[in-house]
């Protein structure tokens, strides 16, 4: 570094020199954006307003025939039909039928799937052999199997449960298996260094480590189980909300379709909340 080289460049005079600013004329400093937060009450009020506006708009649009009430029905008619549905028909038989198929399918599919996923831990060879089959079954659109399932299991409850199981089983299997693969090899090493048997390792390490993975699919599975049960009822059934919807649609009783769909949504929500609660409880009590 020679002085002559440096002196070729004009040197800024300390103190008085200012770099020409590209932020002309003068940078405006921005305030930290603070998102506005509404009170819970206000949020609920807006939510209610949205529902009222939607229903009111629908009713008015149907009355003024902006939309064809024959195809779209209207809230007032749906309300009337709903009253009849719950007082005169065998609504509760249908609801109970669908819920039973859903819950049974959910429980069987989740348990069997988790067990299957866990079983892959026992033998790497067995897991390697089984994996393509599982992936293959996963890729089949299970709903497309519905007619076959009805033929094999009949039009009763069994076929609906089977559909629900078909939908939930693979998700549980794959997720649990992913959990099995994520078990820390160092933890396995620790267990073996303590002299553990395979069974001890499985019970004291693998199951508790995989449990959060299994629990994470519960909420997905309850939705899938319901879908399976409904589709089973669509194909062929004597009871159930799915059958109710199909029947109402075929007889152009659109209001009844809406009633059944609403009842279905209500119970879907109820089961979702129940399962979310179950998951939370299990996580707290067992997993930590």
């Amino acid at each position, binding site marked *: 570094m020679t002085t002559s080289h440096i002196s070729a460049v004009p040197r800024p005079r300390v103190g008085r020199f200012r770099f020409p600013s590209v932020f002309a004329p003068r940078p405006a400093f921005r305030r930290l954006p603070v998102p506005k937060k509404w009170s819970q009450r206000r949020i609920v009020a807006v939510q209610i307003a949205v529902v009222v506006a939607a229903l009111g708009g629908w009713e008015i649009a149907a009355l003024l025939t902006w939309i064809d009430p024959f195809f779209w029905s209207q809230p007032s008619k749906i309300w009337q039909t709903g009253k009849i549905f719950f007082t005169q028909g065998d609504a509760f038989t249908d609801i109970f039928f669908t819920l039973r198929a859903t819950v049974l399918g959910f429980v069987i599919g989740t348990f069997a799937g988790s067990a299957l996923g866990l079983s892959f831990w026992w033998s790497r060879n067995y897991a390697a052999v089984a994996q393509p089959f599982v992936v293959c079954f996963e890729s089949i659109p299970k709903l497309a199997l519905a007619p076959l399932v009805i033929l094999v299991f009949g039009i009763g409850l069994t076929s609906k449960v089977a559909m629900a199981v078909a939908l939930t089983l693979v998700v549980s299997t794959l997720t649990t298996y992913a959990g099995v693969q994520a078990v*820390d090899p*160092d*933890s396995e*090493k*620790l*267990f*073996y*260094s*303590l*002299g*553990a048997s395979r069974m*001890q390792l499985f019970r*004291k*390490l693998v199951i*508790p480590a995989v449990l959060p993975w299994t629990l994470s699919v519960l909420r997905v599975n309850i939705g899938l189980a319901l879908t399976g049960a409904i589709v089973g009822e669509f194909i062929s059934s004597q009871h159930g909300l799915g059958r109710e919807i199909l029947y109402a649609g075929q007889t152009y009783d659109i209001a009844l379709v809406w009633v059944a769909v609403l009842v279905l949504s209500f119970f879907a929500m109820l089961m979702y909340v129940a399962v979310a609660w179950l998951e939370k409880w299990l996580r707290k009590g*067992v*997993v*930590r």
Partner: protein
Amino acid sequence: MPSAKLEVRSLAMQFSTSGADVAALTPVSFGLSEGSFVSVIGPSGCGKSTLFNIIAGLQPPTGGAVLIDGEDATGTIGRVGYMLQKDLLLPWRTVLDNVVLGMEIKGVSRQRARATALPYLQRYGLGGFEDRYPRELSGGMRQRAALLRTLLLDTDIVLLDEPFGALDAQTRSAMQEWLLQIWADFRKTVVFVTHDVEEAVFLSDEILVMSPRPGRVVDRLTVTLPRPRARSVANSADFISLKERCLAHLGHVTPEMAA
């Protein structure tokens, strides 16, 4: 050597990666007497962890044998306590239940194991934390819990693989003194792996210096500093000369350390 607690007899380990044979350990032999504290130092990749895995029975050697009390123990697990670098506490178990894991695996009922372990937790700085979960503990406390889990395993030999490697300097120095206290109480044969020469000299009766790949023992130093040792021992001439001898061995292999 009739009375060695732990004897490693011409232990060798070869890996074959992509066709080429790599020797991780060339025949390594040494014997350790009962109740001694021995450190193993050496650069990364000198096969310290491989050596530990073999002694713990987690990896079969390609040659040689491990003897405990003169008895062939090659490939048997659960005979030595082994503490890995990470604490590996199970997040779903409380501290107490983590500490009793080893006993539980050995078939002691959880009830009895808890009753046995609780006084130790109180005595060794985990009192009041027995019902906490590992994530609520500091790094130093987690290491204490992990070490207690290893020590309560009723094995005479304990392998510690850089247990304080991830701790900050202050915690680390406190943990060293804690370890010396606990070692004096339990009277186990300890094999301690570390990168830290000062730590090795401060803690040990003997130091084995290993060379980088292929791993072998290049020097064996006896530390004659009196016990119990205070921190100020680090200023003594003996300490410094031992430290320098170790550093000279390691300095010899600096390029590999960088790798």
